[in-house]
């Protein structure tokens, strides 16, 4: 017997999709913008830690939003 029930594709959670996009932008800012910023003191440490923090934030965001990518079924 053929199963005639049609399954709805899972619904993407808009907030998670937007969150992923924001994470990508954050990661790109960390890679391209932060190293080019000129600091008054000329120190490397602030740039390096800011870059690392942004990449960590972006990565953490991707993990969170991928784990919550779809609407929970009712």
């Amino acid at each position, binding site marked *: 017997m053929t199963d005639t029930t049609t*399954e709805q*594709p*899972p619904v*993407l959670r808009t907030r998670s999709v937007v969150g*992923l996009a924001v994470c*990508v932008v954050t*990661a*790109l800012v*960390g*890679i*391209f913008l932060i*190293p*080019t910023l000129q600091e008054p003191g000329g120190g*490397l440490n602030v740039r*390096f830690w800011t*870059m*690392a923090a942004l*990449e*960590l934030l*972006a*990565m*953490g965001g*991707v*993990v969170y939003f*991928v*784990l919550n*990518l*779809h609407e929970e079924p009712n």
Partner: protein
Amino acid sequence: MDPIALQAGYDLLGDGRPETLWLGIGTLLMLIGTFYFIVKGWGVTDKEAREYYSITILVPGIASAAYLSMFFGIGLTEVQVGSEMLDIYYARYADWLFTTPLLLLDLALLAKVDRVSIGTLVGVDALMIVTGLIGALSHTPLARYTWWLFSTICMIVVLYFLATSLRAAAKERGPEVASTFNTLTALVLVLWTAYPILWIVGTEGAGVVGLGIETLLFMVLDVTAKVGFGFILLRSRAILGDTQAPEPSAGADAQAAD
């Protein structure tokens, strides 16, 4: 042929950096991988497969951006170690900080482990990269090797966790998942082990290998560990959710009907 091309690459930008050849090739290969995964994943509706595609597209995507930044000399700095000035591409660490936890997330999703395990794995991995970066920017050999050792121990913990807990969890999900997981874990074990070895023999460590060769080898490792990994993962049926796996689900349904 210019001897420098044999030794270290080719200075594509004319700024005295022969390694730009390898950085340019790395950018292109990562971009090709990203677009291949996007095309392959376009229109996928399976819930689990979408998660794998999201992660696997982002990994070479961000890596291509990091390679492009290194190609143009952004994220390149000089660090004084003793009386010597070393060129350090610290954008490489930004790439690894973002991408290596996501590769582990792919494996964790495949093994279907709980979120605490995912958090632990991702946390230790991030610690591995951050301590590696601190080592790369340290000014004394003792500090550099100490941070390298710390970072390598973190890597061993991650690899041990993969080869034991996650492997056992993947095995419980059936032969298809176990087979894909074992292939990917073997790839990760071999490639990731090569990174600290290359670091210690490269310019950031003992300096046995020059910057050009080091950049080439890191590029080969990065492309294989990201694009190669994604290629193996996304061509496997193991990434499909339980509702999409044809034979096992049909069999399970029949058993349930009995």
